[in-house]
Every structure is written in C-alpha cells, then in structure tokens.
C-alpha cells in the first residue's frame, strides 16, 4: 500500500464528478471556506496480493460478526448491547428469518504491513457509496491508472437485489416494488444521491424502484400498514435512516408491529443490523475472538466502558450509537487529548485500544487513511478510502481513489513512429 501524490488531474473534473452524482463534493469547513471532498490527483495503490489478503480478512470479519450476532441472540445479551426492549422481538425475528440485506461497510485500520484491524462496522446506513462505486470507478477508467481497482460494487449490488427480491417474491407470491427512502432533513444531497444510485441498481436487477422521503411515509391507522403518498403499499423499503432513530419516531412502534405480521413492510437493512451498527459489537467480538491467534489479529482489544482494564491509559472512547466520529475521544495517559463534539454518549460508551492510524505523509502534510471495505450480500465487494489530516476520521475527511498494481509512466517515453 502506498500513496501516489502525482496522479493525473482531469480537466474539468469538478464539474464531471458532480454531474456523475457527487453533488455533495463541495464541503463547507468551519470558518466558512469551501473545499473539495474528492481528492483529484493523489491516490492509493495496492498490490494484487494485498487486495487478496484484504478480501480474505473482510470475509473472515463478516463471519465473525455473524457468530457475534448468534452469541448475542442465543444468550439474550440485548440489554448489554443497549438494544431497546421494544426492538428486541423484531431483531430476533429478522436474525432468524434473514430478510433482504444488501450492504454494509467495515472501517479498517491498515498500513500494508500487518493484517487490517477492525475499527467499526457501519452495517445499517453506510454512505460513501456513490464515490466508491461510481466516482472512483469512472476515475479509474478515464485516467487509465492502475491495472485494476477493487470495485465490484455495482455488479454485486445488482446481483444482491436480484437474489434477495426473488427470494422475497417466492416467499410471498407477490412481485415487490421497492421504495427507497431518504430523509429530507439531510440537505447536502448525499443521502438523496445514495438512494438514486441504489435505485439504478434495483432497476437493473429488474424491479420497480420508487423514490420516497422518510417524512412522507404514511401509516394507515386502520390496517396498520405503511403506504407512500400515492397510496401504494410499501412492500420493500430501503431506508437510509438508522433503526435506532426509526423506532424512536412516532410511528416506530407501528413499524415494529407491522413487521411482525404477515404481509408487513420489509425494511432494508433489516432490524438485526442494530446488533452490528452499535459499537457494542466491538467488545463482543473481542470477547469471542480476541484470544484466537489468527482471528484476534483482525481486532483491536475493546471493552464496555464499565469493564476497562485498570491498566489502560491510552484508548479511544466511542459512543454506542455515534455517527461520523461524533463524540469519539482519544484518551492518552488517562486524559482526553482529542475529542470531536456531538450529542451522543448518553446511551453508553465502549473503549477500544488506541492504534494510531498510519500516516502516509505527503508534501502537504500528514494523511491518515481509513479503509472502507464494502460487503454486499455478505461478500467482500470493494473499497473506498477516506483520509484525514487528524487521527479521527470525521465528516470533513477526504475521499481518495485507489488502484491495483499501478505502474508510473516512464519519463520521456515516446511512441514508436
């Protein structure tokens, strides 16, 4: 793994990536300046062997998360995981019946030397999809840099919808229409573009895709079913809206009740993703696999906040339901040295061993990458990298594309005449 600083800069790239869907590229930073979220020019390069090893690690991590889910459900550890009581029957039911699940993203610490280490699992509402699946793929094709790219996202998303929806259709005898919902409160365009892209993959899977705004979802309090504003029943809804928010909303109890009855709306991702999207997954994984000489290598030691070893002085504290780095704190020598603001934490914290992100420094300063490894329908599917100047990857990080087996152009090369 290496960071190439002097890559191709495409003429007109800003307008091009926006037209391709990255309308949220311009990011306002504190102080009012606007900067590009996409980094044009620099990129990361991997060897094919590195990517093969990463794929294997991601597949292994996914299996470990499945085992952790079994452990929580079988031993009724919902209270320890802070899964709200009202959601537990639906979490348990979806875990056992495996309704449609499409995608998730592991965030990994990786420096190209040892195995990747799991930082967290964004299993319920992962974003960064448009730039991973579309923008960097087009960049790779246009610039011709790299022999390949770890990016089978599009093919695998289409196949995931096909497999899951066909299974749903066979079970119910109904050909589902798929609504895809985003919250209109998110105004950067990111959620809407994520949904629009996923609509493309639904359509290419052969199913009807309908855009929907979360706030427009209608509950019929006569039959207890959910409809869109045009009165169409919601068969299958992809929701870019976290479960822990959904169940707290006014209609939350109805969502859970409807889901338990035949003919109810199928929500994608399913409710069991709460088991994985909470940071409480991290200490459960460590408890199960931390002592395994191979599997433990993919994890950082992690504990619930009330079980922190007394000898620990350096660690990262993460709120159970935090997002985009909010309320994450780095503790060194027993004192907080870095902390991002936010409103999370009342639900509890976990702590994870402090493993500083590697620094692929450039002429413009430090670059700390986090690898976002995508899982589609349970299989490794691709990679998206965000890098930050600081050690906490937040919503002001940059997206940097990547290649496999890049060969720099030879200086002075001329075509034979």
């Amino acid at each position, binding site marked *: 793994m290496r960071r190439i600083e002097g890559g191709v800069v495409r003429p007109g790239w800003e307008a091009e990536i*926006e*037209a*391709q*869907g*990255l309308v949220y590229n311009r990011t306002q930073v504190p102080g009012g300046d606007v900067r590009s979220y996409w980094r044009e020019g620099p990129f990361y390069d991997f060897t*094919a062997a590195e990517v093969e090893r990463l794929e294997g690690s991601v597949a292994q991590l996914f299996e470990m998360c499945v085992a952790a889910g079994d452990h929580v459900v079988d031993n009724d550890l919902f209270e320890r995981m802070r899964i709200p009581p009202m959601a537990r029957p639906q979490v348990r039911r979806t875990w056992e019946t495996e309704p449609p699940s499409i995608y998730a993203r592991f965030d990994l610490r990786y420096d190209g030397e040892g195995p990747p280490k799991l930082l967290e699992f*964004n299993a*319920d*509402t*992962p*974003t960064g999809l448009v730039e991973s*699946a579309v923008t960097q*793929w*087009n960049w790779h094709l246009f610039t011709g840099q790299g022999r*390949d790219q*770890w*990016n*089978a996202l*599009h*093919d695998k998303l289409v196949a995931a919808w096909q497999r899951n929806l066909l299974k749903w259709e066979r079970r119910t005898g109904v050909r589902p229409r798929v609504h895809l919902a*985003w*919250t*209109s*409160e*998110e105004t950067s*365009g*990111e*959620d*809407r*573009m994520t949904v*629009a*892209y996923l*609509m*493309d993959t639904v*359509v*290419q899977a052969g199913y009807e*895709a309908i*855009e929907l705004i*979360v*706030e*427009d*979802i*209608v*509950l019929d*309090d*006569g039959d207890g079913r959910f409809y869109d504003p045009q*009165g169409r029943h919601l068969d299958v809804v992809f929701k870019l*809206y*976290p479960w822990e*928010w959904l169940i*707290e909303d006014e*209609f939350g109890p109805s969502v859970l009740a409807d889901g338990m009855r035949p003919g109810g709306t199928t929500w994608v991702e399913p409710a069991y993703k709460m088991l994985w*999207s909470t940071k409480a997954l991290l200490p459960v994984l460590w408890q199960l696999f931390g002592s395994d000489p191979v599997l433990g290598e993919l994890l950082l030691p992690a504990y619930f906040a009330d079980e922190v070893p007394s000898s620990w002085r350096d660690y990262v504290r993460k709120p159970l339901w935090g*997002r*985009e780095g*909010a309320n994450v704190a780095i503790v060194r020598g027993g004192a907080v040295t870095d902390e991002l603001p*936010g*409103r999370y934490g009342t639900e509890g914290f976990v702590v994870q061993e402090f493993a500083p992100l590697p620094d692929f420094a450039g002429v413009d300063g430090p670059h700390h990458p986090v690898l976002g490894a995508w899982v589609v329908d349970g*299989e490794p599917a691709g990679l998206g990298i965000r890098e930050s100047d600081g050690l906490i990857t937040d919503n002001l990080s940059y997206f940097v594309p990547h290649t*496999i087996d890049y060969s720099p152009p030879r200086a002075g090369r001329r075509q034979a005449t």
Partner: protein
Amino acid sequence: MAQSNRVRAALTTTVLATAATGYLAGCSVGGQDDEQVAYCTDENGKIVDDHYCDHDYHGPGAGFFFLYLGGFRGGLPLGTVLPRGGTRINPTDTGARSRAGLPSTGRVTGGQRVSGGLGSGFGSRAGTGAGS
C-alpha cells in the same frame, strides 16, 4: 473472487445522473413547493371552516364537504376557491384519510400537512447525517 466489475466500462446510472442534474439545477423533491396540503372545501372547491370536515360532522350540508388535497399554497383564507385538480377525500372515509397522510379521524387543520410520523429523529440529532 472477482475484484472489479465484469465490464470495464462506465456504469449506466441513469437515475443517479438525472437526480444529480436536478439537484445541481436547484430542483427540490419534497420541498415546500411541491408539498401536498389539505383544505376543507365545499363541493365547489371553496375553502370552508375546518369543522365541516370533522369525520363525525352531521350538521347542515353534511356529505357535501371534502378534504381537498393538492400542491396548494399554505395559509389560504376561507372563501378561496381552489383550482381544479388535486384529490378529493370524503372526510368520513377514515381509510382514505390515513392513506393520504391525514389523521384518520378528527379535524384537519387547513393548509397543513399532517403525516410525518417518521423522520423526526434527524432534527433532534442535528450535527451528523443519517449515514455512517
């Protein structure tokens, strides 16, 4: 395992490209401009007092008042005649009211959208997006 998409060509992303074009042009979806609102009207589409559209109204003219749903401006005064089009809902049809995003019984406040029992979570957690 295949590490990249089978066909090494630009992806077909029609919905995404169209959405991006619309977004960049400043079009909104679900914004104020195209929000559906409801008024209580008489049979001619003239806005009347909300109480005529209570689900259990049995006074004079009962049966000739409608909840009129469409992309109208909010805050229109009584007596305004709404343009033709939109959707008429019988105020006593609780199922139709629900499916339109209105409370199934009781009164509908003129010019107000009253669905939205989902989505409130975002506002109370301002500062981070719904994605992760």
